[in-house]
């Protein structure tokens, strides 16, 4: 199928993201990329678990003294909701409803920004307590794990925003549909990683 074909909701394919060879490659390739990201985060999680609460002799910071569940809960809610709104966006993408897709993507970005703001506040708060990146093995591994996730969130926000701006004037076609789709996949992945961070770092840190 040609990229320049103009579509109506009736002629729009059921799975526009995989209607072209390029799109199919992109989706398969992106799933494989995510598999590799899983291993990347697994390495960071393993390191964090090995170095949790470890520091120079007499270090007073522990997961119990540092982390607060209400903040982590609020961040979790923001990010989980943003995953839901990105599902709505892809639902509208498949129905050839460009405006609704853009709206839901916009909400996704706002929720993501909210999450990022809280994360920056949280890191800033810890640094204020003296829990800096260089303070201990615990702090280095914590900032590396959670910071890598935060970096992924930032990249995702830049990515989705760029896509929205770039395609604002021309609407949906078979060239950009796979791009929106994989960006949404990426956003879900970020969300799944956060679920593990919430469990392993915050829940197990405060309760376990």
């Amino acid at each position, binding site marked *: 199928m040609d*990229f320049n074909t103009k579509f109506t909701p009736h002629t729009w394919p059921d799975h526009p993201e995989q209607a072209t060879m390029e799109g199919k490659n992109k989706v398969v390739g992106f799933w*494989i990329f995510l598999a*590799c990201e899983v291993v990347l985060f697994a*390495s960071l999680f393993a390191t964090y678990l090995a170095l949790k609460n470890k*520091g120079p002799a007499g270090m007073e910071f522990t997961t119990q003294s540092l982390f607060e569940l209400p903040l982590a809960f609020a961040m979790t809610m923001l990010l989980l909701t943003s995953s839901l709104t990105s599902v709505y966006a892809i639902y509208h993408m498949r129905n050839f409803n460009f405006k609704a897709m853009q709206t839901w993507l916009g909400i996704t970005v706002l929720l993501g920004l909210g999450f990022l703001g809280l994360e920056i506040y949280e890191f800033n708060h810890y640094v204020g307590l003296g829990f800096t990146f260089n303070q*201990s*093995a615990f702090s*280095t591994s914590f900032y*590396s794990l959670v910071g890598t996730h935060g970096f992924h969130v930032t990249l995702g926000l830049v990515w989705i925003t760029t896509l929205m701006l*770039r395609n604002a004037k021309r609407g949906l076609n078979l060239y950009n549909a796979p791009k929106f789709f994989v960006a949404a996949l990426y956003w879900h992945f970020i969300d799944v990683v956060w679920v593990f961070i919430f469990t392993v770092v915050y829940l197990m840190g405060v309760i376990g």
Partner: protein
Amino acid sequence: MSSYTQKKGFGATVWDYITTVDHKKLAVMYLLAGTLFFAIAGFEALLMRIQLMKPNNDFISAGFFNELLTMHGTTMLFLAATPLLFAFMNMLVPLQIGARDVAFPFLNSLGFWLFFLGALFLHLSFFMGGAPDAGWTSYASLSLYSPGHGIDFYVLGLQISGAGTLISGLNFIVTIITMRAPGMTFMRMPLFTWTALVSSALILFAFPPLTIGLLMMLFDRMFGGNFFDHTMGGNTIIWEHLFWIFGHPEVYILVLPAFGLFSEIIPAFSRKRLFGYSSMVFATILIGFLGFMVWAHHMFTVGLGPTANAIFAVATMAIAVPTGMKVFNWILTIWGGSIKVTTPMLYALGFIPSFVAGGVTGVMQASAPLDYQLHDSYFIVAHFHYVIVGGIVTALFGSAHFYWPIFFNRMLNETLGKITFWVFFIGFHLTFFVQHFLGLMGMPRRVFTYMEGQGWDQFNYISTIGALMMGVGVILMVINCLMSIKGKPAGRDPWGDGRTLEWSIPQPIPFYNFRQTPLVRGLDPWWIEKQEGNKEITFAEPVGDIHMPNNSAIPFVISIGMFIAAFGALYNPDADKPWSIYVLIAGLAITFGAMIFRSVKDDHGFHLHKEEILEIEEHLYGKGGNK
């Protein structure tokens, strides 16, 4: 005359190679770059062997010896063996599955440039204050406190080139899953494509732990992190785990495509189909799977406890089973075949006993109690060189002979090839066979000299003579390659024994590979057609428009950005270089800017029309097309 058939000037040719996304040109670039680094690392090995030729030698200093052993190992594995195998994967995988290019031609180019500039960065260390000196494993307890910037070069160079390798691996997987020609089912794929697939999957899961390990080292050395600093609660064993979770699969990443190459050469010159094709596929997957279960056998002496050591010992021994399956299948392919002992076949015949020798010593080390004796001795050096030289380098040399006509439409000289084989092969055994005994006699690895009177002198002397012979062999090989420039065009299927799709394409191969997508009617499709007396492969489509990707300079720009950023990170810990952070930011800005540019600028590729195709083919093959 269309632009496709015009001759280009020098500048235009260079620009063409920088921007190309053609898998065949990238394969040639991988081949050249890999050969360059192979020569550098080989030269480093020769310097070390000359130093060890006699006891108490002072040919090179202890510090320089450490740099040499580190750079030899790192370069050979990451920057020589990997790109040379990528050269074959890039060239052959699309041709073997009947595709016009890889799934992501842009990423293919990006993978090459990241690898090349990362490798270049690492080698600049020699001229900028000293190379890394903590061994290719760069254990944190050594590397964290290594003075100077050597280790920083190692960390950043491998980070960049590793990203390139990862991207290329991902690309091969998608290519093999989605780009196969009609009829090319998974169980009809040539074995080399199978091994490329499994090896790429290993890259995908093995490189992220290395990335994280290197990131931690980068944080610790350049940004004040504490992952490995025990006074701050860190733990150096984390590096060892992460490194070997990567490092052991890396061995299989390299050796599986080598197995695949031999699985192409042996049936071709036994003129029989590969014995036990399905079991070969199964063994490949099993080796790939088990490859991830055995990393701690490199760490038996760390003290992980008897339970962990026992589990990893048994898992390691289990790998001998699928590997043994492969060896028997190769032997049974040769058995009863109509054998032609060409140079590639000679390499294959030399490979089998050499590799088995390396494998057997590997199973010996799998036994944890024995490993306590062998650990860090020359026995280990002998073992892994038997696997790597006996397995991978023979595969690279043999397939260079075998596939030279696919790469360059020229044949290598057979007589010189056979002389090269014997010089190299005898040199190889001379070098490493005696090292088994040196190890058993107690000579530790990574020492820059030794005292006389320990019974080591003679074996070390023999080993050095062997290394010099290997050096002569490599030079003969290079001469053979250069001589082929003057040779006659080889034409299609010059061995006459080609079995798979790549041999069915008329030479020189047009940039779109297949004028018409082939129809695959079974395992070894070209062999099937030749058996039926056909002069041409069966096609799946009439001649029509072909969609091809555009060239792009963006991969080069992205890689240059990373290259610049690496200098910024490198000098970040130096108090007298406050500008380093701006260099880092500028480099990253170039990289991300180029990525955003790529994202917002549409790139639909172009269509090659039927008339243009016919014109190109007339230009390449003369009037009347390739009939």
